[in-house]
């Protein structure tokens, strides 16, 4: 089990009589695997590169011989793609949303693979737990839905419809306008970023804690208490791994869904 190797290496570096080295944000910093000049290639980068190659390779292999009656790989890839195209887009954007399907499908698959690499045995690091990736994906989604809204409704019209929605008593316009503007233009990318980052960060931290803690309890503490607590901790870690897998897929779905909803809202802003 490679978590043993990971735990062993961590324990070897901190196995003192001082006690357990609790995992923290420092465990998200990695020593470089190799360096080229000032550029350090670290484990999160490795996860991203491998994930991208995997997705690209998968869809390339599927698209080379498109069969009318799909084989298993094509069926799996098509199911994933149809999940975005027929599941997310029609309900959120409607018929004109189909030109966003490439972006949303890429988003969904990329996020799903990046997230799930948190529980794949040797990689075991969700690249989306470093804030840069969710941040830039949120910025891309933000640019897209604002650009689409401005293109559709004109620059003034977009902000007018956003800040002064019809059907609201005019007296509260001064109250409503700055809040609506802030909520749509500033807060949306932040919540997109932080929701994904914090979920992945917390999940990875919890897995580290249960598994490393269980290992420490099993091997470093003497007595029955250590054995019982340690094995329970590791069992709990296994349960949490499955739960974490579910959360990872869910968060990828939520990010994609919210991006689609924001794009849909920008396209049709007549409430």
């Amino acid at each position, binding site marked *: 089990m490679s978590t043993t190797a990971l735990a062993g290496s961590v324990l070897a570096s901190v196995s003192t009589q001082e006690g357990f080295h609790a995992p923290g944000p420092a465990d998200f910093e990695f020593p470089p695997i190799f360096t080229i000049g000032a550029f350090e290639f670290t484990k999160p980068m490795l996860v991203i590169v491998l994930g991208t190659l995997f997705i690209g390779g998968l869809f390339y292999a599927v698209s080379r011989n498109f069969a009318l009656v799909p084989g298993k790989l094509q069926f799996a890839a098509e199911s994933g793609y149809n999940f975005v195209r027929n599941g997310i887009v029609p309900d959120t954007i409607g018929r004109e949303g189909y030109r966003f399907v490439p972006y949303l499908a890429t988003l969904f698959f990329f996020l799903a693979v990046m997230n799930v690499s948190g529980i794949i045995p040797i990689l075991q690091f969700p690249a989306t737990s470093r804030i840069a990736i969710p941040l830039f994906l949120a910025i891309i989604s933000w640019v897209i839905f604002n650009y689409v809204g401005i293109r559709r409704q004109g620059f003034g019209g977009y902000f007018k419809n956003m800040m002064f929605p019809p059907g609201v008593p005019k007296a509260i316009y001064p109250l409503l306008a700055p809040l609506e503007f802030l*909520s749509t233009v500033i807060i949306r990318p932040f919540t997109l970023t932080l929701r994904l980052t914090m979920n992945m960060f917390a999940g990875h931290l919890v897995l580290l804690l249960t598994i490393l803690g269980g290992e420490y309890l099993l091997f470093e503490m003497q007595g029955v208490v250590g054995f019982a607590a340690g094995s329970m901790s590791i069992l709990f870690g296994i349960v949490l791994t499955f739960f974490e897998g579910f959360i990872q897929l869910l968060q990828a779905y939520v990010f994609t869904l919210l991006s689609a909803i924001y794009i849909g809202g920008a396209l049709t802003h007549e409430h």
Partner: protein
Amino acid sequence: MHALSLVIAGVFFWGGIGWAIAQWQDNRIFILVGVLVGAAAALYLVWVRYGRS
């Protein structure tokens, strides 16, 4: 969902205004006043838009 983002926006916007007034008047009470006004205003806004049927 949108209601929550309105509340967050209200707290930060009016809290920011309260902070600016506090810097101007050199009295930290205005930060609290701004945050409370923002929260109240945003909750009223949510009620107006989504609460009444």
